[in-house]
């Protein structure tokens, strides 16, 4: 696999030659927004501000999240008033939380990635003090990834039954290939129980392209550079 491609790089289209007679679309990025972000948060960002297509991206650690988000929401130069999305991501090595913001001042989407959350106890501050609509999104992230948003008043499971014990969207949660067993026969939903890092057995997980066969399955310690999202920096 080698070192994974860096995310910010603007790669030429694979199909530029044969796609269509129309010339390739020039990615629209807001340079002014990138400059303002760099000036404002230079010390708090983990990597440089990157942009691709119509999305500007910054990566922060969980410690800096509250200050960065409140500044983005409140400052007159940003005014990112609308939380477009809140998503959890499991890179196979660490967990991330990805925020997408919209501002009337910028043609770009802003993507804020809170990176480097350890798998065994991922904790980060909640943003419900800015957008109380983020409450259910954080509940969903907790339900699917086990992310703990400190400050969310109602951090319950929202999709799975309350007695469900693992987090389905983690990479160590394997989908069963045979659907023969079913709750109808008194069997609980098929799942691979969530294993913490220090527990003995480290489950197989997919961090590299897998076609379903065991060829693609590796152990988390071995790779990690292979996947685009860890990108070398793990934790702040």
């Amino acid at each position, binding site marked *: 696999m080698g070192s994974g491609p860096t995310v910010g790089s603007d790669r030429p289209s694979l199909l530029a030659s044969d796609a269509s007679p129309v010339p390739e679309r020039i990615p629209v990025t807001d340079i002014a927004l990138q400059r303002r972000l760099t000036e404002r948060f230079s010390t708090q960002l983990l990597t440089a501000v990157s942009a691709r297509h119509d999305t500007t991206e910054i990566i922060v650690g969980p410690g800096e999240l509250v200050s960065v988000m409140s500044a983005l929401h409140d400052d007159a130069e940003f005014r990112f008033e609308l939380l477009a999305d809140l998503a959890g991501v499991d890179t196979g090595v660490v967990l991330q939380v990805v925020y997408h913001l919209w501002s009337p001042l910028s043609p770009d989407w802003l993507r804020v990635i809170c990176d480097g959350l350890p798998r065994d106890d991922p904790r980060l501050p909640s943003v419900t*003090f800015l957008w109380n609509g983020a409450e259910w999104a954080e509940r969903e992230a907790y339900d699917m990834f086990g992310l*703990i948003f400190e*400050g969310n008043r109602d951090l319950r499971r929202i999709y*799975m039954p309350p*007695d469900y014990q693992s987090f389905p969207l983690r990479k160590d949660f394997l989908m*069963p290939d045979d659907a023969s067993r*079913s709750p*109808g026969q008194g069997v609980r939903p098929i799942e691979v129980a969530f294993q913490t890092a220090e527990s003995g057995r480290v489950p197989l997980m997919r961090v590299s392209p897998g076609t379903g066969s065991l060829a693609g399955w590796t152990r988390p310690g071995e790779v990690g550079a292979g996947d685009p999202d860890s990108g070398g920096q793990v934790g702040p």
Partner: protein
Amino acid sequence: MEVTPPGTPEADAGTGTAVLDAPVPTGASPIIVPNTQWLSADQTAYNGGKPPTITHLAELELEEKGDNGRWGMLDVVPTTADYLLDYLRMNSLWPLLSGLACCAMEMMSAATSVNDMDRFNMFPFRASPRQADVLIVAGTLSTKMAGPLIRLWEQMPEPKWCVAMGDCTCSGGRYKRSYATVQGIDRVMPVDVYVPGCPPRPEGLIYGMLKLQQLILERRGQWADRRVGPTVPAGV
């Protein structure tokens, strides 16, 4: 058998009530509560290990006599009367107003002006299970919904019939491999007529209901033994 995990309000009650340090469960120690999803309210129904007490055929099922000789000396007259009764039931099927997912749209469309189920007296849709005859399970059945669906089925008075509408209810369909769905409702409840399709057109549902009418008439007052599992009735 309630286990209160560390981190819940009981365990460390009296912690600060400020929003930011609210007591939140930890990701590593999952919440364990008694299973309430799979125990329906009536413990003796279906998976309770005891014979069902809902249908008035329970006693016969205990004696494993099936429907043979249930009339005793009055064999001729009641059977004829049941033939008449079944003719009435066949021509007045009130479905339960309950849709689970996508197929519910086509179920409603089957009842509306374009293709009118009311012509066959399959109307009105009753809102209360106490007054419904047919349970049209339309849409994917998730493991969380299975318990309530079983209880709905228990609440319907005999004689009652179940129509599985759509691939998801027949076999799991396109979500068969999911971790949260039941692979076919016949694993948790009896089914009389299967209507495949993703989703079936309203004409398909009406055809299935007509098949159900034929089935009711052919049973001649003898209801199928409510065994959970694929039961494709004879003669249909």
